[in-house]
């Protein structure tokens, strides 16, 4: 079953692309299939249809029904394993 992750960044293209690729690869290595869609930080509210988890490259000021995490570790390479554990936890519960 494919999970859907929303990746949001400052301009809808640059950082979110990196994070989307890395998270999809990392989760595939753990046997989890995901589809990542990208959007602008300000568009998160309008893109939540069918989304299991949100990853952002900057702190989200609003909170939504969907669990969200800061995706910066995927950019810096630091702390990715802990973050992945948390993501896997959330996705497995769905």
């Amino acid at each position, binding site marked *: 079953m494919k999970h859907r992750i929303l990746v949001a*960044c*400052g*301009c*809808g*293209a*640059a*950082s*979110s*692309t*990196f994070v989307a*690729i*890395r998270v999809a690869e990392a989760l595939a290595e753990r046997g989890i299939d995901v589809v990542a869609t*990208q959007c*602008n*930080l*300000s*568009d998160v509210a309008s893109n939540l249809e069918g989304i299991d988890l949100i990853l*952002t*490259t*900057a*702190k989200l*000021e609003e909170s939504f029904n969907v669990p969200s995490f800061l995706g*910066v570790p995927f*950019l*810096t*390479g*630091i702390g990715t394993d802990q973050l992945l554990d948390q993501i896997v936890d959330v996705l497995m519960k769905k």
Partner: protein
Amino acid sequence: MVVVEYIRDALGNTVVLPIVIFLLGLILGIGWKKALHSAMMVGIGFIALSLTINLMMDKLGPASFDMIERTGLTQFKALDLGFAPAAGIALGTVVGASVIPFVFVLNLIMLLTRMTKTLNVDIWNYWHYALSGSMVYFITGGNFWAGILAAMTHAIYSLLIADWTAPRIQKFFDLPGVSIPHGWATSSVPLIMGLNWIYDRIPGIRDIDIDMEGLKKKIGIFGEPYIIGAIMGIVIGIAAGWNFGEVTKLAMTLAAAMYLFPRMVAILIEGLSALSKGGQEFFKKTLKGREAYVGLDSALLMGYSGTVIAGVVLIPITILIAVILPGNTTLPFGDLAWIAFFIPMCAPLMKGNMFRTLVSGVIIVAMVLLISSVFAPAITSFGAEAGYVIPGEATGFQYITGMSAGNLVSLILYKIADLGAVVSTGITFLISLGIAAFVGFKRVRSERAMETQA
């Protein structure tokens, strides 16, 4: 030099950069399949970008011509196409394409010698260094080495500034381990620090701040790039005297272009992603636990809503400045939706004071417009080589440019190169390397002192 020219002429810009990426990928050990994928994505990304530019210019060109004729605003000789075409052009010259491997290797050397703590994996934004390199290449009449030296000087400067601003950035945005060596953002740091110093010394001004929350609710969807594109289309269409059908078609076309540009850039970034990961891995093995920052895109700084809102407020202000500023020949358009990218360093360096950010924003925009006007002829000439549509006499604009190319560091390097080509750029490069070496030397000493104490 002959070899370099042959490669450029025989293969064209859209092939050279992918080849460079492929080779760099192999060297970094990411494997030939990933290297090939990266190279193809970069090449495809460039073509996608070119498509979008042509789409936009197809309608915008004639509209601008008519608008300028009707309104008599003939001081506008250069059309700002925005960061995506500017980057494509900067990376598309022979110097530009070579900048990526040169700067990357320079960064690794500087990291190993502790001249910098930042590993700049934001390869897309090497385009700002490529811009300096390409502008110098232009003004020296095609001197490849002067261009490369200029690009590397810009990179050294950016890395040093990144290290210096890192603690403040990490604290303000809660981004541990991150620094911002972004070629444009770093160029604004001295100016912002200088302005902040001045504000602190003016009684009355130094205490003012503005509340952004109220503004945020009113702005809402108007901050969307595609809406801004549509609005600009309507404004330009009406000013051009076009009929309702034509105006709406123009508005939709521009909305589409604004929406598509970042997505085309995303294709290019996908290509660069494997490379930057390869660089990070390569690096982890050699650094062995010494502290390093990961250098990232200033897009991360958009997480502070004050900056984003100020960016939107500055849009109409930018247009006004463009009209009244003497010496400005640039009609702002492509980068209007992204004015926020010219002020991201204001918030962390001015403790989030939005009043100061807005005032500084006005000054910064004026500077950017003037510089992008200066660079317009060079950009247009390289654009022609890269195969982009040139809005010649048929469209009323003599030149194309990008506000993102309005980079103060690039301008300084450009002027230096004008004085003495390789000699003056070489000296500048050596001076900046010297400064970096001094910083590195002190850092090595203090790190060793800490190690012996531990």
